């Protein structure tokens, strides 16, 4: 994020740096990385649905071939089925598995 907007370049830099460290983990065999976060949530809360989706797509593009697992935590309050059902389905479509946390 830069100035509250998605920054693909910065995201790519972060992924590259973390991937480099992952590969250099000499004492772990086939190291895998799981990142659990809610980076896109503020965008969705503020109604910037396309920007949130952009981050999700960029993330998938950057890490899809890597042994990474990204877990995104979206509060259900982000999605109001009565007023805006579309974002829920679009966000879900960017994920391999969707689960209600509790």
């Amino acid at each position, binding site marked *: 994020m830069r100035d509250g907007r998605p920054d693909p370049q910065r995201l790519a830099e972060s992924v590259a740096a973390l991937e480099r460290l992952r590969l250099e983990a000499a004492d772990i065999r086939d190291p895998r990385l799981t990142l659990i976060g809610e980076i896109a949530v503020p965008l969705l809360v503020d109604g910037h649905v396309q920007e949130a989706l952009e981050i999700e797509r960029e993330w998938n593009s950057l890490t899809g071939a890597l042994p990474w*697992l990204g877990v995104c935590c979206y509060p259900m309050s982000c999605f109001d089925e009565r007023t805006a059902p579309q974002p829920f389905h679009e966000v879900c479509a960017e994920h391999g598995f969707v689960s209600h946390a509790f």
Partner: protein
Amino acid sequence: MVSSATRFEPLAAALQHFDEFMTIRELEQQLLEDRLRLAAILQTSTDAIVVIDDRGVIQSFNGAAERMFRCSEHDVLGTDLERFVPERSLGRTEPVSSGSVLHPDERVDAAMEGGLATVGEFLQEALQNAVKHSGSHRVDVSLQRSAIDVALTVRDSGIGFQLDEVLKGRRGLRLVSMKERLKLVVGELTIDSRPQYGTTIRACVPLTAASPSGVPHASITSLT
């Protein structure tokens, strides 16, 4: 006249409150146990697991992440995930893959040749150091290339060292010498080591002849 049923109403209400209180206590205990169980699973997972909040601030960092990123949970909690992104790379790198090498057909200018020769010297020096001092049975070497530079990393999982202490001794002179050689090709030497956490030494050399400012620079940096 007060009936016996009416007389026992406060007692019945108190008992009900007590029951509810005990139920809440049991639920709290169960929640605590669930949290501890989850924390134990996270901690013992062989996957490095990092939890960040909506601002990218690290909230949780398990044991495998500590080993992968070579820093303790205590050191990183509450800090930005971007702490792992080298400052010099911001705005200039692209994802790289392990073991990527320069293609023989690619054009190599004189400055770059000098840089690569220095990286070769660095490799020899770093491997000697690892074998001689680390006590590790395994040393990993990776060569990575981005659009702007070549980075050679030598990493061991040995005994590690305190950089400031080592810099005072004879071994420190060799590190300074390594830094000076890299300086000639506008390179950068990064040392990440601390006792019991092994050592990672990285030499990074730009693929262009000069730094953006035109002034050669190099630094020894401890990441810990």
